[in-house]
C-alpha cells in the first residue's frame, strides 16, 4: 500500500482501462489515450494536497460531524412495486429482466 505517492501520478492507457473496468464504463479503444491524458491532468492538481501536513487530523465525512440518525425498525412506506417497475426497461411477472447470468 503506497501511503504517499511521490509525485504526480501518471495514468497510462492500461491503468485507465483497469479503472474503467472497476467503474463498469466501456471506453472505446480510440478514446482511452485522450481520457488518460485528461485524467492525468486532473490528478496533477492533487500535488498540493499530498504536501499538506494532516498528521493526527481525524478524517471528516460530515461537515457537522453528525452521525447516522436511527429510527424504530417499523414499516413506514406502502408497497409500490408496480409503480417502480412500470418505469423499468424490462420486467416480467414482477421481476427485473437481465441477460442470462447462470448457464
Amino acid at each position: 500500500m503506497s501511503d504517499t505517492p511521490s509525485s504526480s501520478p501518471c495514468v497510462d492507457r492500461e491503468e485507465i482501462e483497469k479503472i474503467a473496468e472497476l467503474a463498469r464504463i466501456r471506453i472505446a479503444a480510440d478514446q482511452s489515450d485522450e481520457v488518460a491524458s485528461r485524467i492525468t491532468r486532473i490528478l496533477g492538481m492533487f500535488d498540493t494536497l499530498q504536501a499538506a501536513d494532516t498528521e493526527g487530523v481525524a478524517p471528516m465525512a460530515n461537515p457537522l460531524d453528525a452521525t447516522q440518525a436511527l429510527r424504530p425498525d417499523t414499516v413506514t412506506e406502502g408497497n409500490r412495486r408496480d409503480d417502480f417497475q412500470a418505469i423499468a426497461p424490462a420486467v416480467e411477472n414482477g421481476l427485473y429482466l437481465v441477460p442470462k447470468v447462470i448457464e
Partner: protein
Amino acid sequence: MHDQTVAQLARALRDKQFSSLELTEHLLRRIGQLDGQLNSFITVTDEQALDAARRADEALASGRAGPLTGVPIAHKDIFCTRGVRTSCGSRMLDNFVPPYDATVVRQLSDAGTVSLGKTNMDEFAMGSSNENSYYGPVKNPWNAALVPGGSSGGSAAAVAAGLVPAATGTDTGGSIRQPAAFCGITGLKPTYGRVSRLGMVAYASSLDQGGPMARSAEDCALLLNAMAGHDPADSTSTRRDVPDYCADLERPLDGLRIGLPKEYFGEGLNAATGECIQAALKELESQGATLVEVELPNSQLTIPTYYIIAPAEASTNLSRYDGVRYGHRCADPQDLHDLYTRTREEGFGDEVKRRILVGTYALSAGYYDAYYKKAQQARRLIRDDFLACFESVDIIAGPTTPGPAFGIGEKTADPVAMYLEDVYTLAVNLAGLPGMSVPAGFVDGKPVGLQLIGQHFDEGRLLNVAHRFQQVTDWHNRTPELAGGTA
C-alpha cells in the same frame, strides 16, 4: 408582470390585480417566445401549470392563500417530479419519469406555488458552465455568447430573463451561487442538512444542498421558509427548528463584523470584479458594518480536496445507473457485464465519466489513504479555518467567482481550467456552511456576484445583510434586454 419579484407578485395576487392563471399564461407565453434563444428549460409543463394556477386562484378567492400561493416557479431538472420526466441533464435519465415528488417539490407545491417546468443543468450537476447538458448549453441572457454558469444554469438564466420569478437550484460546489453571479440574480445555498435531499438526484451526498434562486434576498427568504425543515426520509436533514427567514430582513447592520479572507482578494481575482466587490463592501460599511481581514490558511487545499471527495462520492452514487431498474439501457446486451458497461458508456457524458473514473481511482485499493482519507483530513482543516474566523466575525464576504461569465466553449478543452472557476465557492460546501451570491455590479455589461458566507444555520443573517444591501442598491433589479418578448 415578469419584472416583479416573488414578494411583489404574491401581494398583487392577494390584491386581485391579476390572477395566477393570467400570470401563468403570461409567463408560459414568454417561455414560448424567448426560450429558443436561451435553452433554459428542458421540459415545460403547460397543462399542469395551468391546473395548479386555477387551484391557486380558488385558494386566493376563498382566503386560504399563503405567502407563495399562485406564484410561478421552476424546478431544476434534478428534483424528482411525479409524472414529469426528470432527466438530470443526462441521456441516462432522458426517459425517467419518477413515481414520486422530491420533498422540496412537494413542499413548494403545498405552499401553493405553480411549477412551470424543469430547468436545464449540467449533467448530474457536474459542471460550472451548463455546457455539459445532454440537452445543449444554456445561453446567458445578458450576452448569448457567454455561459450562464452551472450547474443550475437553466434556473439562473430563466430567472434573469424574466421567464419565471424564482427557481430551485442545487449547490454541491457552487452550483447555485456561481450561476446566480453570472446571471445577476440572488441565490442561497443553505447549511448542509437544512433542506431535504429526498428526491434530489444525488451527486456528492455529503456536499449536495438544495436552495432558492430569485431576484432578491426577500424572495429567497420566502422560498426558504417553504423549503427548509426536517424530513424523516432524509437521515442527514437536521431536526433544528426553522426560523421565519423573513422576520429579521430589516435588522440594521450596526455592529455587524464582516470578515474578508485575504486569500479571496489576492492573485487570480479579476481587477474589475474586485472593484465591484470593494464598492459593495463600502456600502455595507456605510450601513454600520465593520470590515475585518481574516485568514483561511488552508485555502490552497480546497480545489484538490473537493475534486477528490466529490468524484469519490459521485462514483459510488452513480453506480446505481445499471440499465436494470430505470433509465437508459443499451440495445441487445450480450451478457450482464455488457449491459452495465455499454449502458454506462452510452448514458453518461464525458465530464460525468471523468469524475466517475477519478473517484474510482481515488477509492481504489492502494490509493484510498493517499487520496480519499487525505482529502477527508484536509476537509476538516478547511472547515476549522472557517470556524476559527467566526470566533471574531459574524459573516464572511468576498467575490463569488474570480471573474464574470466566460465565453461558451472557452474552457471546455481543459477540465482543470474549468475547476478553477469554483475556487471561492467550493470550501463553503466542504465546510457545510450557508452561502449566498448577491448582485453587486457589472463588468463590461456582465454581472458580478458578492458572496456572503455564514455560520452553520445562520441563513437568516445572510438574508438580512443581502436584503439591507438591496434596499440601497438596484443591481438585482437590472434586467437584460431580450428581443421578441411581449411586455
